[in-house]
């Protein structure tokens, strides 16, 4: 499973949305109906699954699915 697929599957699990609703440009809050606790849980799921740390100040910059994918890719690179 590549990063895009893994991110999508985590979002589907966490937010209980249909897979085809999760598009790169989808906003977690506006399009996928996430509340603040959902965002915290998603961030923790990303951290666990990709072995990365998402600092609080970055959390606000991750608004869409693509933002999350970009952040994970960059930080996984930084780790390796």
């Amino acid at each position, binding site marked *: 499973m590549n990063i895009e697929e893994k991110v999508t599957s985590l979002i589907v699990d966490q937010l209980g949305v249909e897979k085809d609703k999760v598009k790169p440009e989808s906003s977690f809050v506006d399009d996928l109906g996430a*509340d603040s*606790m959902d965002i915290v*849980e998603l961030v*923790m799921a990303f951290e666990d699954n990709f072995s990365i740390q998402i600092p609080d100040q970055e959390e606000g910059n991750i608004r869409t699915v693509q933002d999350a994918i970009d952040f994970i890719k960059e930080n996984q690179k930084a780790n390796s």
Partner: protein
Amino acid sequence: MKNLKDKYIMITGSSRGIGATIAQHLAKLEAKVAITYSSSSDSAQQVFQSLEGKEHLLLQMDVTNSESIKNAFDKFMEHFSTLSALVNNAGITKDGLLLRMQDKDFDSVLKTNLYGNFYCAREAAKYMIKARQGHIINISSVVAQIGNPGQANYVASKAGIEGLTRTMANELAGRNIQVNAIAPGFIKTNMTEQLNVKQVQAITDRIPLKKLGHPQDIAETVAFLLSSSYITGQVISVNGGLAM
């Protein structure tokens, strides 16, 4: 009292006093419990041996150290794989009148009673959020409501716990997690045994029910809260009417 079969419960600071009685009572109601202690391993061992039923757990955990807490929760989850409830009971006193109370006495009481409560609840919430259920029960004190000379540190920590309880209840309600506090009045434990006869008499005179409470009174309130599905964000007073 409702049976607590299939409930997996951690009780912090349960090597003696109220915590020990809570653990024994919940085990009697068929819950699986984890006793945690910071340094009194002998008395923790004794409480552990006294528990009815099997599969209980004994854990060393320093509530002032989030790393130690994480390790203890990891062991708990390895053993039970579910966390149904956390009873935040660990607490200490270092009494002294305001003007004589040293920084370190204030700090250490806040660190154990309030910070410890927060650290443990935060760790527990991680698991409970995933499970979409759970209970956190914080042990406060009647003095949070009425104050007590010589206990600025203890009273501040307990009042803090009550505010923390309401905030956590709000934040976690959406995930079906109930957070409540119990505020015991004067209960017969080692903590109150340090008082002399005169002091005990003076306290008893102030209590409308004219007697000290028993740890069992608190343990039964914990079991009651665990059996409720519609109480959250509350502070339940168990104090013989000392504060109304």
